[in-house]
């Protein structure tokens, strides 16, 4: 695979300056904000002031969990030409949004405190970490509105994940089970392909796929439940709306035991804002588990924009060796 240089804060591939149109106005990616800032003034002092202002306005990105390593930050930022917008249309009329998309913060450890990487270990060791904003935008308190019995179940799972003595405490993702539509969206990169009458998701993490027909065909019967649910989509302008039913919900929603039942009904909205940004919102409705519907959301940005990038095999289940060991170790430790 051809190596590509990636903007460490924005996830996009660099294009060499030589490829730019002559006379293009330089742009600066201000971390933490959507879109580039275009300082049109010549003075270096004014540009610096603009950057500092943007940093204070757009939020403390550098305080977040997944900031780049210092040597990456020092790389010279080259200039990237934004994709043209409004989008090109595919022959069947869909806006062309195919490619790879990353959330603002990836990782499925927690929905209310989204964090990437070994945060479970951090928590176990008592290492303090800054809380990231909840992915839940409705209700306003950022918490999942569980029914009382469901909140007890979630807390029960969360209390036991670090020393799992029962199968139910093993995270399904550790077993390489398909993540379900919500969890797959936030775990690793979302790969979207488009064909006449279809949108396809082939998620980079373990490659579960979703085939979303756009032809208005009826939903599957209720008695078929699927790990990745069953999707029916349509476009509203530049927003892809997907109705997801027939969820078996067995992959849970996070490491810390967030869950839904097989009654879960999801309505996703992917709003494509320009060539490289997208706003994702998903309405989660499950009266068996929640007191009311709730909404999970994130900004997304394009990644892997090198056209020679290829998504290669990930054989998770075939390579998995440790889960049964962790059960054995926990049981032995608990027995002492």
């Amino acid at each position, binding site marked *: 695979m051809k190596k590509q240089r990636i903007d460490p804060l924005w996830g996009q591939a660099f294009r060499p300056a030589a490829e730019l149109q002559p006379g293009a106005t330089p742009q600066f990616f201000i971390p933490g904000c959507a879109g580039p800032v275009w300082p049109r003034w010549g003075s270096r002092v004014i540009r610096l002031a603009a950057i500092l202002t943007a940093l204070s306005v757009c939020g403390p990105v550098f305080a977040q969990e997944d900031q780049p390593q210092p040597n990456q930050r020092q790389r010279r930022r080259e200039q990237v030409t934004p994709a043209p917008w409004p989008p090109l249309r595919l022959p069947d009329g869909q806006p062309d949004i195919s490619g790879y998309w990353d959330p603002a913060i990836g990782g499925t450890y927690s929905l209310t405190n989204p964090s990437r990487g070994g945060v479970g270990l951090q928590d176990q060791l008592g290492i303090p970490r800054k809380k990231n904003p909840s992915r839940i935008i409705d209700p306003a308190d950022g918490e999942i509105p569980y029914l009382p019995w469901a909140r007890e179940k979630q807390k029960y799972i969360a209390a036991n994940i670090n020393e799992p003595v029962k*199968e*139910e405490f093993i995270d399904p993702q550790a*077993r390489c089970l*398909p993540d379900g539509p919500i969890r797959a969206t936030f775990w690793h990169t979302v790969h979207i392909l488009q064909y006449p009458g279809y949108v*396809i998701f082939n998620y980079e993490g373990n490659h579960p796929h979703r085939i979303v027909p756009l032809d208005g065909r009826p939903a599957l019967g209720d008695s078929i439940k*699927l*790990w990745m649910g069953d999707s029916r989509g349509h476009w509203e302008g530049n927003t892809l709306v997907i109705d997801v039913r027939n969820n*078996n919900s067995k992959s849970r929603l996070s490491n810390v035991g967030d869950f839904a*039942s097989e009654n879960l009904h999801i309505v996703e909205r992917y709003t494509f804002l320009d060539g490289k940004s997208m706003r994702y919102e998903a309405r989660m409705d499950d009266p068996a588990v929640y007191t009311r519907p709730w909404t999970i959301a994130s900004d997304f940005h394009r990644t892997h924009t090198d056209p020679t990038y290829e998504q290669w095999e990930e*054989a998770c289940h075939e390579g998995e060796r440790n889960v049964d060991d962790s059960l054995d170790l926990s049981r032995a430790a608990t027995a002492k």
Partner: protein
Amino acid sequence: MKQTFSRPKTPAWLLAAAIACCPLLFAEAPAGSPAIPRAADGKPDLSGIWQVLNPANWDIQDHQAQPGVPAGQGIVEGNEIPYQPWALAKKKENYEKREQLDTVTAKCYLPGVPRINYLGLPFQIFQDSKVITVLYEYAHANRDIYLSNAEHPKGHIDWWMGDSRGHWEGDTLVADVIDFNDQTWFDHAGNFHSDQLHVVEKYTLADHDHMNYQVTIEDPKVFTRPWNMNVVLYRRTEKNVQLLEYECYAFPLEKYYP
């Protein structure tokens, strides 16, 4: 000056004879069979849901029925697999222990190529001019057959499903597949290969609803010469048919979740 052209006169009897005798001259599919669909770039459009009807997944050679296994006429050309002597002995040992050793039936591992295509579960082909993406119902397997980048990456890579690079030869999609591990079998009967396996697949639409799938197997560590398999893929034509899921490694775990 006005020119006049005299056309050669074709006798009517000759025309009638040609039409009666040689329908293939007119390059149409046989009567009653829908014509081959074409993509925007003029290539045959392989898109759709496909599935085999034969039991080659159990044994790619001629075999009789066993409990749970239908009898089958083999898909191997000549019905003989040209094993080297040591490999024939190993195949027999594999067969004796197939219930433990076949990682597809015992562990729900990926089946490799070409077994994924005659496993017996449906798969859906999505086609454009740069890549053919195939999504399988079995264990969410997927393959990308790259058309725009014909070079295999620097190997050797131990993949379950190999690396596939394709091109069109007339109306046949030819896929060259290498970079396999040695963990997969060609069937449940213990027919195996090494990591030097090289598969050449040929996909040719016979008509709208049937595809001829021919495979050439080459593996100098295991076989004395290349050999071929031939399979017919049938299009699933039921109204609103779609892929479902067969997440077999989840079956013993489902009860613990959510």
